[in-house]
């Protein structure tokens, strides 16, 4: 226990969504829409795969999955830094949410296997 009611409540909320092997498999299926071997599963309020309106690029997650992902990622940060106070915790949640949102946008930009990161080009520019 952290002796921090708000923090404990957050962690409890996270624990409401245990990442069981089935849930993990469901998340994987969500990420790889169109290749879901189960034909779509429902985990609590998180509808996977069949909730999609069409194929998307990883990780164009439904809102509920995105929130779950934010909670789980936040839990990892809080586990590393268990003595953060309420304001810090809110900042972590806000920033993780922004990072997940950024990730959504980045993965909505189509790239090919041949697209190299810029530092490869920078590394050769002055040789």
């Amino acid at each position, binding site marked *: 226990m952290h002796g921090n009611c708000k923090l404990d409540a957050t962690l409890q909320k996270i624990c409401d969504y245990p990442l069981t092997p089935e849930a993990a498999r469901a998340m994987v299926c969500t990420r790889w829409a169109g290749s879901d071997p189960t034909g779509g599963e429902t985990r609590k309020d998180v509808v996977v795969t069949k909730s999609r309106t069409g194929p998307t690029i990883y990780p164009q997650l439904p809102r509920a999955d995105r929130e779950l992902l934010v909670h789980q990622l936040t839990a990892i940060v809080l586990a590393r*830094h268990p003595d953060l106070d309420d304001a810090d915790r809110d*900042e972590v949640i806000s920033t993780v949410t922004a*990072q997940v949102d950024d990730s959504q946008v*980045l993965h909505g930009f189509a790239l090919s296997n041949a697209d190299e990161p810029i530092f490869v080009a*920078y590394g050769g520019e002055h040789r």
Partner: protein
Amino acid sequence: MTTAPVDLDFATVSELGALLRSRDLSPVDLTRHCLRQLDSLGRSLNAVVTVTDDLALEQAARAEAELRSGIDRGPLHGIPYGAKDILATAGIPTNWGAVPFGGQLFDKDATVVARLRDAGAVLVAKLATVELAGGMGYDHPDAAATGAPANPWNVDRWTGGSSSGPSAAVAAGLVPFAIGSDTGGSITMPAAWTGTAGLRPTYGRVSRHGAMALCWTLDRLGPMARNAYDCGLALQAIAGHDPQDPSTSREPYTYTSRAARRTGFRFGVVAGATDGASPEVAANFAESLEVLSELGTLETVTLPQLPYAEVADTIMAAEAYAAFDDFLAAGRSRELTARKAHAHRLAAAVLPAHDYIRAQRIRARAVTWYQELAGQYDALLAPTLGDVSGGVDDAFAYNLTGTFSRELNLAGVLAGAPTISVFNGFGADDLPTGIAFAGARWADNAVLDAAAALEERTPWSRRHPMLAADVMRVRAGGGR
């Protein structure tokens, strides 16, 4: 010393250089003047971290002796300057603007500091910076060990960051030029808000060795000065290959030994550049375009539609976390002044590596497309910022998005391309506004020449704040 015919506080590097060479002014007297100003006005503005009296007087005495004996190291010989306090200076504390790094000492100068010393320039101060150059997050001007830096045009307003000290010191006439750093706009934005010229040179033009690393693929060092020409003089002194910074180009750089252009430019005006800007910023930009239309052609251009802010945010988060991972893992971000910084960057611990790589892959596309567009012009143009500076006691939104489009800034940040912001008029509350000239990679001289041409045709770069009343009020405890 005879009476100088120009206002020492606001003289340009060239004007001061002429006085030094005619012996109407000595490097030692000029340095003593700057040291006094820095110690009084500079501290009142929270622009100064360390006044380097002993070193400055020693360097000034050497410059004086050399100039008298006919040794001339060039346009910066005997000229005082300030360095943002993220640049290492041997034996002088380099605090990175942050309480946890207070008193930090390095045994070697940063390459830019060494090069300026070799050019005969005189280091008079380490200047304020947002703590850790803002890389841990901040949403209030007071996010610095030295407190919130006041804007010399109105001490109730902020300078912008993170090169707050360099911009304030130049604007207040405490130093003729300074060296700042820029990862996402930290030179150009405070330049715009303080009515100074600030150049973010091409990535690879200037060595970062000895500068605090925040984001290895984005960090750049550059000059801040009264005008674009002085920025060029300083760039010439600090540019060039450095074996200790493998990102630096082996191509030599010259600014003075060439024919500078003043006409025949081709400008690209970014479509929608004033969307979300204040009416005054839009009006000043329109007036600048009218002047520039006499110097060359203007065409409307559209920047490639890319997720600039998301790419920049992701790269900054990953690299800033990596640059300070031990510090963050130890929970030491809670020692920083900014409340936001206590936990903000911790979130990057769970930013997937492949997202960072993806951002750098999209960035490669951005570079290619930006180069294709910018390569057709001498400079792409947009207002540097959408409004005048905010309150020095006011919180602000910490993000790269907003109603005013900053796409030209972010495109230049990601492309590693040069951008200079110069003073182009006054906005609300008689505060300065800026115009940004962004060029293709390695086209530093094109943007410098274009900006200098605008400055020559307008009065703004010769305007300066009337400091005395405001600063005296602060010093008397009247508060801001």
